[in-house]
């Protein structure tokens, strides 16, 4: 039975399910307990599981994430919530130097069943320090995996998979997705965490995207269809590893690649996607791969400039038209 739920509710149910299923699962983070999470993701769980399972932490990102690493070494399955990815910059030592390295440096002795959840997008006028998209900083770290759920269904699947995985998983969420709604079919079998998903079929070009940009890309595809251009829209769902197979299969059909990302262009995720697909599908391509990306600037506080700085549906439509013209 498909239920319409908010993205935060899907995450909430996933946590509830895993906390109930395995008492080594713990949740750590600021205001995850009594308050129920800044975006309601842990609502109701503190009352149900108590303070050892849901721990309200001090503002000590470096150390509570590091504590998550230690707890994972000792057999717990911590889910660390960092309020936003901007604060994760303080936890990079724990994530990059510890979580990603210990299993390897120990010669494979230790599992690292750590999940780090955080939103990492542009919300609404939160200004430059609170509006960063930093996925590219984690994408290049061997030893990490990054899931980017764009829908409640994926949030539900991927958070549960992340908790059950013995590898350290970054679950990159989005401030503006928490209160978006979608179908949740809890019984449906999950695809592997890193599988991309074709959300819309089309023969004229392939739009590859993830997270909140999926919604914009689908809306753009609707508009393009009215103009006679059929876009295939792929949600990557995972940024490390990338499901090249799914992307390449689509390009074999459409021969045109458009990457849509909320981050800016230079040395960001889209650059890797374009390079990776150019290597794999160069002779399939009928046009230069294109990117719709944010402007190369910190996000201004002013509302109009903020909107102008990141991709809009019209930008995607224009880029696609330019490629198919």
């Amino acid at each position, binding site marked *: 039975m498909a239920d319409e739920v908010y993205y935060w509710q899907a995450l909430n149910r996933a946590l509830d399910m895993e906390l109930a299923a395995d008492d080594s699962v713990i949740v750590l983070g*600021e*205001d995850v307990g*009594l*308050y129920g999470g*800044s975006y309601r993701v842990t609502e109701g769980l503190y009352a149900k599981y108590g303070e050892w399972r849901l721990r*309200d*932490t*001090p*503002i*000590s*990102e*470096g*150390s509570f994430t590091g504590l998550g690493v230690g707890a994972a070494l000792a057999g717990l399955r911590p889910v660390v919530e960092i309020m936003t990815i*901007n*604060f994760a*910059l*303080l936890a990079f030592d724990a994530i990059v130097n510890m979580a990603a390295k210990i299993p390897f440096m120990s010669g494979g002795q230790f599992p690292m069943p750590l999940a780090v959840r955080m939103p990492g997008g542009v919300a*609404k*006028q*939160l*200004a*430059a*320090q*609170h509006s960063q998209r930093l996925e590219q900083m984690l994408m290049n770290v061997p030893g990490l995996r990054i899931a980017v759920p764009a829908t409640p269904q994926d949030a539900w699947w991927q958070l549960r998979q992340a908790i059950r995985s013995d590898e350290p998983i970054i679950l990159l969420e989005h401030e503006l997705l928490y209160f978006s709604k979608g179908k949740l079919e809890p019984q449906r079998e999950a695809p592997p965490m890193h599988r991309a998903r074709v959300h819309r079929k089309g023969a004229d070009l392939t739009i590859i995207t993830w997270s909140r940009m999926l919604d914009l890309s689908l809306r753009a595809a609707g508009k393009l269809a009215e103009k006679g251009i059929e876009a295939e829209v792929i949600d990557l769902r995972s940024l490390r590893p990338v499901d090249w197979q799914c992307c390449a299969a689509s390009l074999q059909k459409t021969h045109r690649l458009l990457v849509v990302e909320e981050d800016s262009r230079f040395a960001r995720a889209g650059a890797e996607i374009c390079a990776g697909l150019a290597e794999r599908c160069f002779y399939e391509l009928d046009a230069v791969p294109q990117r719709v990306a944010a*402007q190369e*600037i*910190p996000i*201004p*506080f*002013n*509302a*109009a*400039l903020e909107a*102008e*700085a990141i991709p809009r549906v019209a930008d995607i439509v224009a880029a696609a038209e330019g490629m198919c013209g």
Partner: protein
Amino acid sequence: MEPDLMKTMLRDMLLARAFEERAAQEYAQGNIAGFLHLYPGEEAVAVGVLRAAEPADYIVSTYREHVHALVRGIPPGVVMAELFGRKDGCCGGMGGSMHLFDRERRFMGGYAIVGETFPVAAGIGYAVAMRGLPEAVICFFGDGAVNQGTFHESLNMAALWKLPVLFVCENNHYQIGTEIHRHSAVAEVHKRACAYRIPAKRIDGMDVLAVHDATIEALEQIRVGNGPQLLECETYRFRGHSMADPGSYRPRVELQAFESNEDPVKIAIAETVAGYPSEEQIAAAGSGNIERLSGELQRSELLTVAQLEAMKKEVAEVVEEAVRFAGNSPEPVMADARAALDCNRHDEVLI
């Protein structure tokens, strides 16, 4: 206490309260968006500290910094315009509520990543100390910020190199929804300073006079080269953490008790205005700050009730004008944003 200073501080506090309450209204009407952290309840800290500072001192603050900016002398219209994201705001609409900067007034910024104010203040202090200037750096932070590593790292360096930094903790007992006893093993923030041999004091942050006196004393020590000092100001915020927070984790009675017995604006009025409140009102209020200060107010006779009313009216007009100024200010354009980003490139042309 000089009468003029007391009156100035009272006006600061009235303006602060009126400005912030108006900002809340403007937020509700959609003229301000994003995170908006307001200061009602905590006015005595910013006012008491900053009225003890010199114009050559540097200020480093957090995202809850509108009042610090106002007391420092940034015109209310210019602050409000920044909250509106407009071109005439102190950062041209690029920073917003959490990032007020004013280089000329040595207002070195509002920082929104908790714990950033410590190293920034230490760095400014380093520059001052190296040049041997009689200036101080005032570093504001919340009770929640002391568990960030930067607090300990920066206090150590400040003490080690005797940097002229006054660390001011605005202890409002909450780190968003987490009460201080649930986030800190040692809830007396001032006690942490002794680990670095930094002289520290806990003071009543609802009493602007107490804050002012303690700051004067601390700054004197700093200016003669004795190194950093720390003040823990005990205070309370009357609103949620930000406009997005209903604040439902706090017991209703706790909030009521602070609002009725500890309101710093009421206390300042009591300290300044003759015969206000009346003897009967004091009796009815029972124990608390107002009663404690009643002796002083009877003696002081600094301001009449009529003068107080006139002051409130004047302040309301200032806020009204600030909103008008902000509303009339143009929106910045992308070229302004680019200019801000490239401001340090000067004449260099990149290929």
